[in-house]
């Protein structure tokens, strides 16, 4: 898509993938942080990781198996908390452990049976290994996320502010909540080949955390987070490919650097000097 701007095909693919993935994840990160469901994002990124490993083991397309397990995890979270009469965080802790164990089980099994599986692609991702179709899928999910967030802006705004008050206002919270979980699950699965199961969480939380340092309203966060994420990710891809550095981990470190700088420069930390 951007070949007219970036003649290097490998770099062009990497930049495109990082651009679409970062914008989609950044929009979701605003919702994840404002709804205090960061642990859900964490669990789902590991579910995608386990799904990817299972997919490779059974010879299924990694993206489909990762999406399937992520979506399944999103669907069972709520009912499982209810049935076990436990706090959601505890249930998520159990699910996270299970997903991590599943992923390690399949990876270890492939290595012990001599199937020559390199786990690093699943763990850290490899942005240059993407097929064109995968980049199109990322672009599509990014557009779907933008479209749905715009369509349901009222409901999402109310739910992110206060879930109980949104319900009292007459908003059907459950369908919107599950729609968001579904979007997170699909986005997480599509991003797995780019940044890997371990680093994915950075894209799902850090952009909003950075935007929050400078934004007063949620509307501003929805604009600032994708811009920050896209700039950081594209720079990460450029530097990584140009200097043969691992793109995913490098971009994750860049995100952390931007976050630290944002915290240092944040107007929210400054106490106004007033004369009394």
């Amino acid at each position: 898509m951007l070949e007219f701007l970036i003649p290097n095909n490998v770099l062009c693919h990497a930049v495109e993938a990082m651009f679409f993935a970062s914008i989609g994840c950044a929009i979701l990160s605003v919702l994840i942080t404002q709804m205090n469901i960061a642990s859900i994002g964490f669990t789902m990124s590991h579910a995608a990781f386990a799904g990817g490993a299972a997919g490779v083991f059974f010879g299924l397309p990694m993206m489909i198996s990762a999406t399937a397990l992520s979506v399944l995890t999103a669907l069972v979270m709520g009912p499982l908390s209810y049935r076990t009469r436990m706090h959601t965080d505890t249930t998520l802790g159990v699910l996270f452990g299970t997903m991590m164990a599943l992923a390690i089980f399949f990876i270890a099994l492939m290595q012990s049976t001599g199937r020559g599986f390199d786990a690093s692609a699943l763990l850290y991702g490899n942005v240059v290994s993407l097929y064109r179709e995968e980049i199109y899928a990322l672009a599509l999910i990014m557009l779907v996320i933008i479209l749905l967030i715009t369509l349901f802006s009222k409901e999402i705004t109310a739910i992110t502010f206060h879930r109980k008050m949104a319900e009292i206002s007459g908003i059907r919270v459950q369908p919107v909540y599950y729609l968001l979980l579904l979007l997170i699950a699909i986005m997480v699965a599509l991003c797995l080949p780019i940044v890997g199961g371990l680093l994915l969480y950075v894209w799902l939380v850090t952009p909003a955390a950075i935007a929050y340092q400078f934004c007063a309203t949620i509307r501003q966060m929805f604009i600032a987070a994708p811009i920050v994420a896209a700039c950081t990710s594209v720079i990460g891809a450029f530097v990584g490919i140009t200097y043969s550095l691992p793109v995913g981990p490098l971009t994750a470190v860049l995100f952390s650097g931007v976050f630290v700088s944002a915290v240092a420069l944040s107007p929210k930390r400054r106490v106004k000097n007033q004369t009394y």
Partner: protein
Amino acid sequence: MTVQESCSLIDLKDVWTTYEGASCPVIKGVSFTIKAGEFVVIGGPNGAGKTTLLEAITGLLPLVRGTVTVCGKGVPHEGTTVRCNVGYVIQNFDFHPFTPYTVEEVVRMGRYGRIGWFKRESKEDFEVAQDAMRKLGIEHLKDELIGKLSGGQQQKVLIAHNLAKKPSILLLDEPFSNLDLITRDEVSSLLCQVCDSGVPVLMVSHAFDSLPDRDIRVLVMQGGHMVLDSHSAAGNVADLIRSVPVAG
């Protein structure tokens, strides 16, 4: 008495309800009806089931037994429809200082359920929200972040949020708890106006000195049961509630 005043807007028949995961019901066999224009105070000791009763009326809790009808709709099956028309000011709220929502945004959110899916806010929605802020005297705070306000100001915002809904019924859980004495009187007077317009007001409260000077229906809960349903002048509500013997 007009036709509207004679119809019951809330009708509870032998209602038993419980929280998810709880072993025994919190509300046990409660029945009453509320008509248009009634001002109702729900009293009773802590843990008596007062807040649970409000949540059962709004359909936020499942019923174990009995029926709840609000504005002719069955709860909880038609809970979402009911909640679009019922204002409910919750008791416990705690907003982080940098919660990224302005006062105006929060008040406008009160309209969102009524507007419906895929529709944008109309000019009328904006005007109703402005009017609600004006009534509560918080217009000047409209661009402030809600988390930056004091507890009392936040309480006013939540009341404005519910008034913006133009509710058919207004439920309030401890609405005076964060308010200073002058603001209590202002809110009390506002609730009186709401009530006079035909909208019944149901309030869980322990601050009886702030009640409006009018005939007040007093419901007293104890251990999930309704133990008193009576009428009183505002000045006698506290004595009436104290006179109810505490069940052993």
